[in-house]
């Protein structure tokens, strides 16, 4: 066992490591990076924070939404032409006061 699985190693660029000289003294230590440019600050819309609402509150709201959903779902399930005929279903408008 062994040789059939040990081997055939993947190669992305066959040149990589082809001229490796172990312990090459000319190998440099990397430069230490000290950025002074402005782009270390992320774009303003990419400063991410966590949702302030905790899980419990979020579930309350979600449950609230779920309760309302069937009422809202009803007009949606109707055929679209019906919707145009009845643009203002009184039930739907009352359940969504912010619209």
């Amino acid at each position: 066992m062994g040789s059939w699985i040990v081997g055939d190693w993947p190669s992305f660029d066959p040149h990589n490591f082809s001229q490796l000289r172990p312990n090459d003294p000319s190998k440099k230590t990397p430069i230490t990076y000290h950025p002074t440019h402005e782009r270390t600050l992320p774009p303003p819309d990419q400063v991410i924070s966590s949702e302030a609402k905790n899980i419990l509150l979020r579930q309350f709201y979600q449950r609230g939404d779920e309760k309302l959903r069937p009422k809202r779902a009803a007009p949606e399930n109707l055929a679209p032409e019906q919707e145009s005929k009845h643009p203002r279903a009184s039930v739907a408008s009352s359940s969504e006061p912010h619209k």
Partner: protein
Amino acid sequence: MSTGRNGRSISVLTVLFVLKNPIRGDGILNLKACGDEYQAPWCRHLQAVSYRNRRTEKERVLGFGGRKMSTYNYVVTAHKPTNVTHSCVGNFTGPQELNLIIAKCTRIEIHLLTPQGLQPMLDVPIYGRIATLELFRSHGETQDLLFIATERYKFCVLQWDADAHEVITRAMGDVSDRIGRPTDNGQIGIIDPDCRLIGLHLYDGLFKVIPFDNKGQLKEAFNIRLEELQVLDIKFLYGCPKPTIVVLYQDNKDARHVKTYEVSLKDKDFVEGPWAQNNLDNGADLLIPVPPPFCGVLIIGEETIVYCSASAFKAIPIRPSITRAYGRVDADGSRYLLGDLSGLLHLLVIVHEKEKVTGLKIELLGETSIASTISYLDNAFVYIGSSFGDSQLIKLNLQPDAKGSYVEVLERYVNLGPIVDFCVVDLERQGQGQVVTCSGAYKDGSLCIVRNGIGINEQASVELQGIKGMWSLKSATDDLYDTFLVVSFISETRILAMNLEDELEETEIEGFCSQVQTLFCHDAVHNQLVQVTSSSVRLVSSVSRELRNEWHAPAGYSINVATANTTQVLLATRGGNLVYLEIGDGILVEKKHAELKYDISCLDINPIGENLTYSNLAAVGMWTDISVKIFSLPDLKPMTEEHLGGEIIPRSVLLCSFEGIPYLLCALGDGHLLNFLLNTTTGELTDRKKVSLGTQPITLRTFSSKNTTHVFAASDRPTVIYSSNKKLLYSNVNLKEVSHMCPFNSAAFPDSLAIAKEGELTIGTIDDIQKLHIRSIPLGEHARRICHQEKSRTFAICSLKYNQSSTEDSEMHFIRLLDDQTFDFISTYALDQFEYGCSILNCSFSDDSNAYYCVGTAYVMPEENEPTKGRILVFIVEDGKLQLVAEKETKGAVYSLNAFNGKLLAAINQKIQLYKWMLRDDGTRELQSECGHHGHILALYVQTHGDFIVVGDLMKSISLLIYKHEEGAIEERARDYNANWMSAVEILDDDIYLGAENNFNLFTVRKNSEGATDEERGRLEVVGEYHLGEFVNRFRNGSLVMRLPDSDVGQIPTIIFGTVNGVIGVIASLPQDQYIFMEKLQTNLRKVIKGVGGLSHEQWRSFYNEKKNAESRNFLDGDLIESFLDLGRSRMEEISKSMNVSVEEVMKRVEELTRLH
């Protein structure tokens, strides 16, 4: 791929012992668990202290001399972390470029894969301890982005801008929750393979989601409740229509299971996943998600490996082992490299028929360092990142070697971590400290000798007083080696040469004038030699050694200074006359003469252009107006004049080129060195920089080492000036004082230097040109304590050896004696079964001049929570053997031993105990208990000073005790009432004590002797706080650099510390005015040098633990301050302007601080 997500917790197959943690100096493992039983209030009576008593205390205190305050501390890294915690491979710096990115706790390193191997590109400091490092490919991107999350709950997404060669921040944020219990098993950060979300498990019972929008932008994060409280690992599954995680967890009966959940981004909740698997291996600890076409997950246990998916379940048994790291080999996920805790590397193969998994196979490939992370690179090359040993670049060969191993180690990257203990010694007795660390763990344990500066390895030396100058000469122009060494004295010149027996003997060059001092010598073209004396320039054949031509100085104009190269001579006579000669075949031609206003102090015409034998420029240093001038050659036209300022004349000038950049170096009579960038066309001098090298005049000379030219600055503080990454660096040479140096590359002593010092001429070779030199001594076992004994010239260590060969794991503990030169084991004392070496000390006792090694031990019994028995063993070294001369049983673990008033002070569990060294009637000795002090949870670290005892407690911070001679008692004087879990303590001065604690913070406390009430006097006031971001295992007094009492930095007391990540750092107590200046500089630097990923330096350095978050105070970040020297000129000016100080002044003051380490 990485699994090293937690550098702290280490599981062992057997029960967890308190003393088993390989990375903590004290061996404390499960801090939380052993602390819980000690939550009772710890109020104590504080004894009133009479004024009389306080005064006697003070009088007894020795050493620090008066009230020197060590309130203001400067913390700087001498050796960066080398513990590799994470690594990943991807196209970060370009779509076609393959990178290896590695994390060393607080730094990341970006490497490029090239035909020559791994090419380091950038070392990026991160203002946080890296908890997660992942590369990912966002939608529509051509190269990978880097996701980093830190232990303090910050994260950032970084991108490489190839055009600007900069790291830019794509996103960052804070993912902390106000309420939540941090996970015990470390933080988990994962990215959905289809880039729909980032998942984080930071607090028990919560899974945090950062969603991506369809443009790859991040959106607001939210939490989902996770029912499983003891999570071991979480990964995303591949190939799922909805993002799906698989959770490996332990239930409250300690059984382990996996479960899957779909993440519903719309509902912000989990939906039960497609499958689950109960009752896995009890040691299952690691999940490997398998990419398409197979998908599913591999569950790595200690005795089995399982493949699990919705449709298949395959398992194989394995030899018992703890797998710590894996690396995927093939893109289709059919092979994986697994690294275990004994350093064995296995290949795990998913056997399949078409796209159906039919089984698993595992094959041992060979041995590596104990891997914390494994990254398959390319063409059978693999990177092994290690926390416990050196990281490695290995190659997987197609055929096994004679030992059956497929692994070939091609490169090793030295890792000092974890530094569990260290000592500071001066083995070469040169007045310079060296650090000897107990590094590594398990089989990769080693001792590392860390030395600053460049060493000279003496080959030959001869006593010679009063050397005024030295030059080496060849016997033919195109000879490879030097033959002659010309040594000049005040009224004569002697010539030494190598004879046929390769001995240095005195010889003659007939054409030279040997009755006077030589000012300068050089090889010249056409097999000639040049000698300049105060009256003439002599041109001599190097073959016949006869005079061929002579140029005489005009009467009354003796030559003061001179210089030459192979074709040119430049000399100056009294009265500011500058004469330029050219060398022909047998002839010296006076080409030009110029009269300057003032006398000339130094000259140079070292060729730095393309022509290696001819210089177009001459540098001239002046008396009186204190300036340097650049002249063109051969016409001696003035090109530039630079006034140096001050009253100190230039003593040595040198034209030289480093990494292709021409410089002018100019050394002053007071040990300062100026350097300028030189425009070779116009002679213009720019970018003036000033550093202080010593206090005496400096002579500059070039020399070559490994085909690179460096400059040697001979002075009371000899220094090598070299260039790295186009920045000039100064490294001290480990010699006390060098008056002259010249390269002497003879056949017998190739690449050597001739050095004149303290009445002696030495020929020696020079170390590699770098700042820190590390020599590693592999032990094959884990050294946990070390100390040095000057008298016997030995080291003694406490070590343990793991034996995993048999069916049962076992370990054996030893006290070993090592020769301090060869580091060979010369004697061993085996401890009993279950007995651990906990502390070691070199000491002597009152009325006994012998030097002893004292060892404190603990019997760590599997059934005990805390050791209840230990021993103190007293050894003497006789004939290179450890002889046990006394033994004392203790009622617990002896965590610390100190020499104290000619007696032995031990910290034993909760107690501090003092032992006398008593002479028995039969002439033998014994330890006899004198007095003790109770009242600690565990007294782990003890430092003493005079009659004061400073104790670092497991969880009760620092307390101060005092030994009362008259009463023969130890009493508590004061304590810090904060609940810091200590990892090291040290005494900075009479009143100020330094502590390091479990959450990677440093702090200082002050004794308040002048307090008005007993309550105030009984309280150690916290005066300094700082987040180091490193777990300190040991503080030691001392310095890595040669400390000259008359230099500025010689006055600054320093402490060295060693950490789990392999950092060696220095804490320097600065005078207040210097501190204020540097604090201002730090504030300004924060505005200019931005934290990578938008992370804030101020927040990073703030003291932080579960109870407290406070701005850092009375500590400065030397790493940030010293990065001032890496800034461009305009940024430096910007900063110095806002500080109202010249750039040069700031640079000089910062350079001085760099000389502390």
